[in-house]
């Protein structure tokens, strides 16, 4: 370090040194990094337990220096429920892709939300099945081409993309819902704040907290990381607007 300079940012402690396997520019990496920054800043590493199901992030436990359980495809919410119910004082999060949370795991997701399970969903919506090689997800946009919708998603046949933030916001015992992204530094900063807020609300036991990351998948979208940001701006955000969908009533302090 040069003299007269101070360190103002370094890789968070809880993000292990292991090189992450994610493709260049993939927001899975960004989410991991920000998540661990939040864990470090809140000082909750000792009481954090994460759940990662199948999807590109199935190896998350190789990178995050917290206790973790790998869950079967779609069942992260059930696994997180099991953990949180028996260890109500831990901070529990599930980290799920769109195939996981909104296709095979629909029932587990919605029922956990309806019960108000007191953990945090980190929902990586990249509009595709990254892990398995680019098949259509429940959140794939209308007309978007994937390996199982090679001529573009046709809503007449497979319906419209699911807006999960909008859906889960309706459940009374869901306390906090926000859709974020990492396409600009400003949005990344908001995303970090959102995750932090979610964990804080969880620690206050106010109900389910749900963060959707409008994410990218340069590899399966078959574009560069830069182009993936354009797709986000031009196609994803118009359908999946960023913002807070629900928050607990403000209490005076």
């Amino acid at each position, binding site marked *: 370090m040069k003299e007269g300079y101070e360190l103002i940012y370094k890789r968070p402690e809880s993000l292990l040194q292991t090189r992450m396997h994610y493709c260049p520019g993939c927001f899975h990496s960004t989410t991991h990094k920000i998540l661990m920054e939040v864990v470090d800043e809140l000082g909750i590493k000792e009481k954090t337990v994460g759940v990662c199901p199948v999807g590109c992030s199935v190896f998350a436990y190789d990178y995050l220096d917290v206790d973790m*359980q790998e869950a079967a495809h779609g069942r992260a919410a059930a696994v997180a429920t099991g953990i949180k119910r*028996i260890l109500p004082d831990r901070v529990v999060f599930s980290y799920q892709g769109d195939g996981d949370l909104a296709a095979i795991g629909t029932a587990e997701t919605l029922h956990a939300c309806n019960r108000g399970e007191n953990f945090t969903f980190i929902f990586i919506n990249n509009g595709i099945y990254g892990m398995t090689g680019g098949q259509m997800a429940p959140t794939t946009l209308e007309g978007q081409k994937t390996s199982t919708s090679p001529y573009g998603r046709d809503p007449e046949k497979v319906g419209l993309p699911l807006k999960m933030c909008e859906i889960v916001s309706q459940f009374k015992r869901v306390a906090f819902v926000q859709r974020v992204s990492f396409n600009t530094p400003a949005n990344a900063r908001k995303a970090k704040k959102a995750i932090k807020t979610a964990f804080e609300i969880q620690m206050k036991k106010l109900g389910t907290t749900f963060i959707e990351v409008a994410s990218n998948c340069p590899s399966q979208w078959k574009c560069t990381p830069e182009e993936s940001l354009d797709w986000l701006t031009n196609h994803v955000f118009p359908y999946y607007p960023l913002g807070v969908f629900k928050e607990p009533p403000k209490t005076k302090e």
Partner: protein
Amino acid sequence: MVETKLMKGNEALAEAAIRSGLQAYFGYPITPQSEVIEYLAREEPKYNYVLLQAESEVAAVNMLYGSGGAGGRVMTTTSSPGFSLMQEGISYIACAEIPCVFANIVRGGPGLGTIQPSQSDYNQATKGGGHGDYNIIVLVPNSVQEMVDHCRLAFELADKYRTPAMLLSDGAIGQMMEKVNLPEPIEYKPNKPWATTGKTPDRERNILTSLYIKSETMEEKNKILQEKYKQIIANEIRFDEYKTDDAEIIITSFGLTSRIAKKTVDIGREEGMKLGLFRPITVWPFPTKALAEIASRPQVKFFISVEMNAGQMVEDVKLAVCGQKSVHFYGRMGGIVPTPDEILDVIKEKEAGRD
């Protein structure tokens, strides 16, 4: 102090779980075992276990994974179709080596079938209904008392080997009331350093996973599991013999039908037939050696496996007997319980047909 009660098998199981230190139960109603969750729901205010009616059996088994992985003493119960839905989860649990207890209060299949008692999930339980090479410890109670005893034992074995253990019971035992001696409740103190309870500075992070993407590590993991299974086979085989010492004809039977087979032995003996009963108490691990030894006795003429299915355990009996003697089968299906008389008739027929 032991307490004696007249209880339904399902309720006795629930009570036994509580007395064994149950910390969490997740389940979904299905006949003929819904009394388990109903009993636990009634008793809940008195204890501090977690009780949650899951949205499905798929959810239940995965909640079990989570809470068992977090170090809890945990159980779920279901009946046949529900147990089928749990197979993926069980395969995960077996590989992630999470101790937990299952009970399948079997009803007649396949499909929706009937809610009457059956033993037709034997293969599913013992050969692995889920994918991959794994085994789970399978205890087969044949009375309400054994629902209690095996429940405690299942929890202990699950912890000892970090493995799922199950009770393979049936609708008759679940629904019937019998006299039961309830053991003293224990104070359960888990000692599970591998559990995901939050990474304290004194240890590395704990990870529970069944993912071994590289062939080499996967094979390594498989070998660890297989090694464990060998240990279990070496230590945990349990069975019962009844008048086998001088028997010429051995009935093999498990669970409910073993009671009828026992009666058959008595009736047969009265008629001068030298019958004996071999009853596996664990069907995985299966008492192969013990059976093979019996098969080698000169006076033993043949075996007959009596089951409430189309012939499932009989294959394990054949594997054990290994051609030393002939092995017959008699089964009823759909919930029909065979009577000692009909079994005896079949035995006489086989006896006559021998050359």
